[in-house]
């Protein structure tokens, strides 16, 4: 019997496997097609204080190795989320912790949505890849100083386990990791999508109404492993790793690189069975290699 539960910065996850924000709706949409008993957490779609319509369509483009999306964080706002969505989730999905993925256009916006969450959810994940309207549209996650500021503000606003989700397009992840650590984050998650663009060459226009979007899926996995590896070397904070997990092997690479837990995202779209297959494969791997627990895999590269 392999011990599959892990602790992600205070969030007790019954298994090491989660779903990635934005790829699993508000958590109940896949009931019937996904085996929830294998999930240690569900991350809900990004939510902010006010409702938000998202981008115009087309919002996605299929590319070799994955998907480029610019959904644009459509959501009903935190009030509706707490009043309807969370109870609806709790009713349909028993025993799987819910992580709220939050965002805002200002530091105050982030703090406000975190504060309103109270303890209705089990953890908060901050998506810092959104433009900071007050600071001229630069994204919060791409300047360690700004990042530190927004994380501190959210830290003050919530007692829940606080996960900060980092952007991949940085020269080095280390200053961002340190900024999160200093600002009181309990865990990190990575990676968010990689900025990308697809052009319809016949119409000579960007495919996405939003012009650019984020690349996710199979192809980004080796880049994600590198960032998890770098982050793990730089911090003791536990890491929730995501980016192109399609097979058990992909999750095991993340764990060995230093992740405490792993999330499945884009793969669920083509195969909702991914959660089960990855869970079973990781457990079988632990058995085969004599690991008594999945958490023993974290950072367990033989190179030392």
């Amino acid at each position: 019997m392999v011990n599959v539960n892990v602790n992600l910065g205070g969030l007790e996850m019954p298994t090491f496997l989660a779903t990635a924000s934005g790829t699993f709706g508000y958590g109940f949409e896949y009931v019937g097609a996904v085996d929830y008993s294998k999930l240690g957490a569900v991350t809900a779609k990004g939510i902010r204080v006010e409702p938000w319509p998202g981008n115009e369509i087309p919002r996605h483009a299929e590319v070799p190795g994955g998907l480029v999306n610019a959904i644009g964080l459509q959501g009903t706002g935190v009030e509706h989320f707490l009043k309807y969505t969370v109870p609806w989730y709790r009713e349909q999905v028993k025993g799987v912790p819910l992580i709220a993925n939050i965002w805002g256009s200002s530091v105050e916006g982030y703090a406000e949505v975190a504060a309103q969450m109270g303890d209705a959810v089990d953890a908060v994940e901050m998506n810092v890849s959104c433009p900071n309207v007050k600071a001229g549209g630069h994204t919060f996650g791409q300047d360690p100083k700004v990042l530190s500021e927004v994380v501190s503000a959210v830290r003050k606003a919530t007692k829940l386990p606080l996960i900060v989700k980092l952007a991949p397009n940085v020269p080095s992840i280390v200053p961002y990791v340190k900024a999160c650590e200093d600002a009181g984050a309990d865990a990190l998650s990575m990676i968010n999508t990689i900025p990308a663009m697809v052009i319809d060459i016949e119409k000579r226009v960007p495919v996405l109404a939003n012009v650019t979007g984020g690349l996710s899926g199979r192809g980004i996995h080796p880049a994600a492993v590198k960032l998890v590896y770098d982050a793990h070397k730089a911090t003791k904070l536990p890491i929730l790793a995501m980016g192109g997990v399609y097979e058990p092997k992909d999750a095991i690479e993340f764990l060995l690189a230093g992740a405490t837990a792993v999330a499945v995202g884009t793969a669920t779209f083509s195969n909702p069975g991914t959660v089960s297959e990855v869970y079973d494969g990781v457990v079988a791997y632990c058995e085969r290699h004599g690991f008594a627990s999945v958490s023993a895999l974290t950072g367990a590269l033989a190179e030392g």
Partner: protein
Amino acid sequence: MIDEKCKVIEHRELGSGYRFISFEAPKIAEGATPGQFVHVRVPGLEASALRRPFSIFNAEEGRLELLYKTVGRGTAALNGVKPGDVVSVMGPLGHGFPLKCGGAALLVGGGYGVAPLYFLARLLKAQGLSPLVFVGGRTKDDLLALDRFEALGVEVRAATNDGSFGAKGLVTDPLDDELIRLRGEGGKFELFACGPDPMLKAVALRATGTGSKGWISMDRHMVCGVGACYACIQKTVRGNSRCCIEGPVFAAEDLVW
């Protein structure tokens, strides 16, 4: 909703790039209603390729039947599937057509948009109604499943752009003739439509504000098919709705064009 491993029973060309495929899909077939769709993992595409959505043409006795047009790499890959192959099919998905009708049931389809109308006509007929089906296409070859409607004993009125079959013109021409006739009689009607956007808009306009109802099945590019990704947005009076879960069938009066 379930992700079912379905064995292919039959797969054949209908001519002009259209094909018919049927599966053993007892679980999906059991729960399906007309206007719902399935999300197919196309064998032969890379593991990360998205699924492709198709309307349920018919679901009967554990069988799932689809009609599709080959338009791109996904449908081209689907061509290679053979009887006996096993395909992952998720379904039934979305909200379909209502199965009651206050007045004449007028079904309008264009191209592969006729796909969900056969299943609908069959179930309406089973309730003792007499659906009337209008089908349109560029040419004769774009008029699908005429034999199936005939076998069902459902009247079909056709229009083709080139006049190669039925009336020459748009499918809304014979529809308008019927609407005028009905109006003359003071008859009530409901419209059920599926097809290309311009056709759907034309049909929707003929319902909104008339006191009659229109049920419009929208075709939006999809990712998850289950309401989880928010890719398949249709603007409605309630804001941005997901075609895969709030739709694909919307009330004509709710749509914002």
